[in-house]
C-alpha cells in the first residue's frame, strides 16, 4: 500500500472511509439534508400560523412539528455541520495528516443516520412523534408522553455518543498533531474555538444522556426523579436539562466565531485586530456558559438570591461577547474591503448576531423576563443568534472553503443572489416575532387572536422566501462541484492559513510530511 493511494471506488469509499476529508464531506451533506428536513417542518408550522384559525394541521401534530423542527435543527443540522467543518479544516489548519483517531471518526459519523432515521420514524408511530418541545420538560415528556418517547431517548443517546467521540477526536488532534512550530497561540481562531467547544461538549453531553436516562427510568422503571408524588421534582429536570442546554447554545456559536474570525481578515485584507483577546473572550464565554443555566427558568419560582445570581452572571456574558464584536468591527476598520459572498454572510453575521445579543441582554433582566419568557420575543431572540449566527457562519464557511475542497470556484452572482434572498427572508421571518412576542403572543401555540395576525402573516411569507433561498444554495454548490471554473491554489487575495498553501482541490492526503511554520 502506497502512502499516496486515492480513495476507494463506489459506496465502500464512504462506508469504510477513515479520511478526514471524506468524513467532513459526509457530515456536511448529512447536515444539509437535515437542514432541509427541519426546514420543511418549520414551513408546516409557518403555514398553519399564516392566518388565525386552524386550517391545515391539528394542534397535536403542530406540537410534533415544533418539537421535531427544534431537535433536527439543533442536533441534526447545526452540530454535524460544525463537526464536518472541523473534520475538513482542523488537520489542514494545523498541518496534520489526518484526525488523530480516524476509525472512531468513521464510527461517530455513521451512527448519526441511524439516530435520525429512528427519530424521524416516530412520526409514523402510534401516538405520533415526540410532542413536548425540543426542551422536553417533564412530566409532559414522561408521564404524559406518547409511546414514541422511548425511541426519542435512544436517538438522543446515540447523538450524544457521536458528539462525545467527535469531541475526543478533535481534542486529541489539536493537542497532539500540530505541525512543529504551531504553538497554541499561533493556531487559527477556528481551531481555538473548536478546541474550547469540544471541551464543552465532553462536559455537557453526558449530562444530557443522564437526564434522558432519568426520564427513561421514570417512564419504564417506576422511579420518580421528576414526579412530586414519588418525592421527585419536575423542576429538577429543568435544572439538569439547562445545565446541558446553556453550554449547548455556545457549542452552536463558538465555532461560528472561529469561522467569522477567519473570513473577515481575508476580505478586509488586514490581520485580526486582537487575536489573544479573542482567545480569552472565547474562554470566558465558555466558562460563563456553565453558570447561567437558570436564566431559562426565571419563572419557575426560584428564591430571589438565585434569580439575582443568574441575572448578574447572564448580564456578564455581554462583556466578552462585546469584545468579539468590537474586534471584528475594528478588524474591518481602515481595511481594504471587498464583499464576496463569504464576506457578505460574515458581515450579516456580525450585525444580526449582535441584534440577537441585544435581545439576549434584554432577556437577562429577570423582572422584564417575566414578560418576555415563553413568548415569540424569545423565539425571535434565539432564531437571531442561530440562523444569521450559526447557519450564516456555516454557509459563509462553505463559500469560503468550497474552492479549496472541490477545486472549483462558485459563481459569485449566484452566491450573492443566495445571500440577498436569505437575508431578506430571514429578517422578514424573524424580526416581526419581536413585535408579536412583546404584544403578548406565547410561543408553541397553533392558533392565535387576530391582534397578532399581521406579524404572523409577514413571518410566514418570510419563512417560505428563506426556505426557497436555500434551494438556490443547494443548486450553487452542486453547480460549483460539477462544472465551476477552476480555482487557484490561493483562491483569495493573500488569505492567511496553512490550508491556502495546498493545491486546489486539496489532495486526498495532505501534510503527510509536516509543513514548516514561519
Amino acid at each position, binding site marked *: 500500500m502506497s502512502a499516496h493511494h486515492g480513495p476507494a471506488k463506489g459506496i465502500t469509499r464512504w462506508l469504510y472511509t477513515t479520511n478526514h476529508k471524506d468524513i467532513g464531506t459526509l457530515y456536511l451533506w448529512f447536515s444539509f439534508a437535515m437542514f432541509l428536513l427541519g426546514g420543511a417542518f418549520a414551513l408546516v408550522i409557518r403555514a398553519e400560523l399564516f392566518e*388565525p*384559525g386552524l386550517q391545515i394541521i391539528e*394542534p*397535536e401534530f403542530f*406540537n410534533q412539528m415544533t418539537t421535531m423542527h427544534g431537535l433536527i435543527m439543533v442536533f441534526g443540522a447545526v452540530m454535524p455541520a460544525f463537526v464536518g467543518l472541523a473534520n475538513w479544516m482542523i488537520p489542514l489548519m494545523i498541518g496534520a495528516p489526518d484526525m488523530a483517531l480516524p476509525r472512531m471518526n468513521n464510527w461517530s459519523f455513521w451512527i448519526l443516520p441511524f439516530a435520525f432515521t429512528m427519530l424521524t420514524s416516530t412520526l409514523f408511530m*402510534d401516538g405520533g412523534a415526540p410532542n413536548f*418541545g425540543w426542551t422536553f*420538560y417533564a*412530566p*409532559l415528556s414522561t*408521564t*404524559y408522553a406518547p409511546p414514541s418517547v422511548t425511541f426519542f431517548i435512544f436517538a438522543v443517546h446515540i447523538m450524544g455518543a457521536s458528539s462525545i467521540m467527535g469531541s475526543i477526536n478533535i481534542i486529541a488532534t489539536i493537542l497532539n498533531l500540530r505541525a512543529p512550530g504551531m504553538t497554541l497561540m499561533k493556531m487559527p481562531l477556528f481551531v481555538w474555538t473548536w478546541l474550547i467547544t469540544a471541551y464543552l461538549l465532553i462536559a455537557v453531553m453526558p449530562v444530557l444522556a443522564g437526564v434522558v436516562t432519568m426520564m427513561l427510568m421514570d417512564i419504564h422503571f417506576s422511579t420518580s426523579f421528576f414526579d412530586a408524588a414519588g418525592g421527585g421534582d*419536575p423542576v429538577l429536570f429543568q435544572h439538569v436539562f439547562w445545565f446541558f442546554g446553556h453550554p449547548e447554545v455556545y457549542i452552536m456559536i463558538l465555532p461560528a466565531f472561529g469561522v467569522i474570525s477567519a473570513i473577515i481578515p481575508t476580505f478586509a*485584507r*488586514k*490581520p485580526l485586530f486582537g487575536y*489573544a483577546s479573542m482567545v480569552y473572550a472565547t474562554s470566558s464565554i465558555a466558562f460563563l456558559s456553565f453558570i447561567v443555566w437558570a436564566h431559562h427558568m426565571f*419563572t419557575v*419560582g426560584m428564591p*430571589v438570591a438565585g434569580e439575582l445570581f443568574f441575572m448578574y452572571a447572564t*448580564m456578564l456574558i455581554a*462583556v466578552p461577547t*462585546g*469584545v468579539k464584536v*468590537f474586534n471584528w*468591527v*475594528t478588524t*474591518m*476598520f*481602515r481595511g*481594504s*474591503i471587498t464583499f464576496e459572498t463569504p464576506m457578505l454572510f460574515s*458581515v450579516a453575521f*456580525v450585525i444580526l448576531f*449582535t441584534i440577537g445579543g*441585544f435581545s439576549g*441582554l434584554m432577556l437577562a*433582566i*429577570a*423582572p*422584564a423576563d*417575566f*414578560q418576555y*419568557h*415563553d413568548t415569540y420575543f424569545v423565539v425571535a431572540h434565539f432564531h437571531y443568534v442561530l440562523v444569521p449566527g450559526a447557519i450564516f457562519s456555516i454557509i459563509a464557511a462553505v463559500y469560503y472553503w468550497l474552492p479549496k475542497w472541490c477545486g472549483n470556484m462558485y459563481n459569485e452572482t449566484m452566491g450573492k443572489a443566495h445571500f440577498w434572498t436569505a437575508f431578506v427572508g430571514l429578517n422578514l421571518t424573524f424580526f416581526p416575532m419581536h*413585535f408579536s412576542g412583546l*404584544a*403578548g403572543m*406565547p410561543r*408553541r*401555540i397553533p*392558533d*392565535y*387572536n*387576530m391582534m397578532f*395576525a*399581521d*406579524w404572523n*402573516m409577514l413571518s410566514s*411569507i418570510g419563512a417560505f422566501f428563506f426556505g426557497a433561498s436555500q434551494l438556490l444554495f443547494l443548486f450553487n454548490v452542486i453547480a460549483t462541484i460539477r462544472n465551476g471554473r477552476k480555482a487557484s491554489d490561493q483562491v483569495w487575495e493573500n488569505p492567511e492559513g496553512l490550508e491556502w498553501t495546498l493545491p486546489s482541490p486539496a489532495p486526498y492526503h495532505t501534510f503527510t510530511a509536516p509543513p514548516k511554520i514561519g
Partner: protein
Amino acid sequence: MQFCMLLNRVSGFFQRIKKPTTWSLALLFTLLSQQSFSVDVDRWQYNMTEGVTPVSRDVYGLHMDIFWWCVAIAVVVFGVMFYTMIVHRKANGAKASNFHESTLLEIIWTVVPFVILIIMAVPATKSLINIYDHKEGDMDILITGYQWKWKYDYIGSDVSYFSSLSTPQNQIRNMSTKGVNYLLEVDEPLVIPIKKKIRFLITANDVIHSWWVPDFAVKRDAIPGYINETWAFVDEPGTYRGQCAELCGKNHGFMPIVVEALPQAEYDTWLAAKQAETLKLQELTNQTFTFDELYTQGETVYNNVCAACHQVNGEGIPPMFPSIAGSKIATGAINGHLDIIVNGSKNNPAMRSFSGELSEVDIAAVITYQRNSWGNNMGDSVQPIDILRFKESGGE
C-alpha cells in the same frame, strides 16, 4: 362575480408596475390588506403593555431602559461598521493599514459595557426584590392548572370553580366569524377586587403550566406537586386577558386566562352570589332528574369538558385518547363507567380523575349522555345521588 372584479383589478395593478421589488412589496401589501377582520382588533401592536399594577409599570420602565441602551450601543457599533463598509472598500481605492492590538482600546471596550451593565443591574435588582415581597396579602387565591383549563379557589370561602375557553369550535374551524376576543375568552373569569394585594398561590394538577397576565406582569409556572406564589395590586377596574405560557400538551394554545378586576363593593356582591350558587349546587345532588334533563345537560358537559380529547363525535384520537363510541366502558357495567370518571384511568394518565372537577350532577349527566350517544344505546341513566354514594363507598 366580486371575486372576478377583484382579480381584474389586482392583475391590472401588477401590469402597471415593472420593478420586481415594487412588485413583491405590492404583493405583500395586497395580502396584508386582505386581512380584514370583521371585528375591530388592535392590529400591529408592537410593544409590551404598561399594564395596570405598580409592578407592571416598573417592568415596562426596565424594558424600555434596556431597550434604549441597546439602541444607543447599536448606533455606535453599526455606525462605525457602516462607515467602514462604505469608506474603506477596495473599490474606493482604500489601502489596508496593518494596525492591530491596542491594550487601551481593549480596556475601554471591556470597562464601558461593564459600567452600563451595573447601571442596568441596580434598578433591575430593586424591582426584583419588590416582586419577591412575600408579605401577607389582603386575600389569597389558589390557582391550579389542568390540561387545559384553570381552577380558581378563593381561600377562606367555599368558592371554587373552573375557567375554560369559551370560544366556539366553529370559530376555530373557520366556519363562523371570529369574535374580537377570539381564544382570549373564558366561561367564568377570575374576579378580584381592585386596590388590594392579591396573593396568587399557583400549582398544577398534571403537567407544568404557566399563569400569565401581561397587564399585571405576572408570569409564574404552575408546577404539579409544588406551590409557587406571586402577587398583584391592580389599580384600575377592567378585564385583563392572558394565556398559558408553558407548553402543556395538545390544547396549550386554548387555555386563556381572563381576570375581571372590580371595585370592592361590586366584588362583594359577586362573591355573595357565587357562594349562594355553590350552596344551590349542593342541594341539586339530592334531586332526581329525568332522562332527558340528564341527557341535555350531559351533552353540554361533554362538549365543554370531554370533547377536547374524545372529540365531539365520541371517536377520540386513539391510542392516547380512546373512542367512547362503542367502547367497552361506555357499553359495559355502569360501575366501570363511574369508576373511570371518578377515579381516572390506571393505565393512561391523560384520563385523570374528574371527581373534583365535575359536580355530581354533571357526572351523572355526562355518563347518561355517553351511554346513549354515537350508536351507544344502553338506555340507562344514573342520578347524582348514585355518584355521591359511589364516592362515599370509596369508589368501589
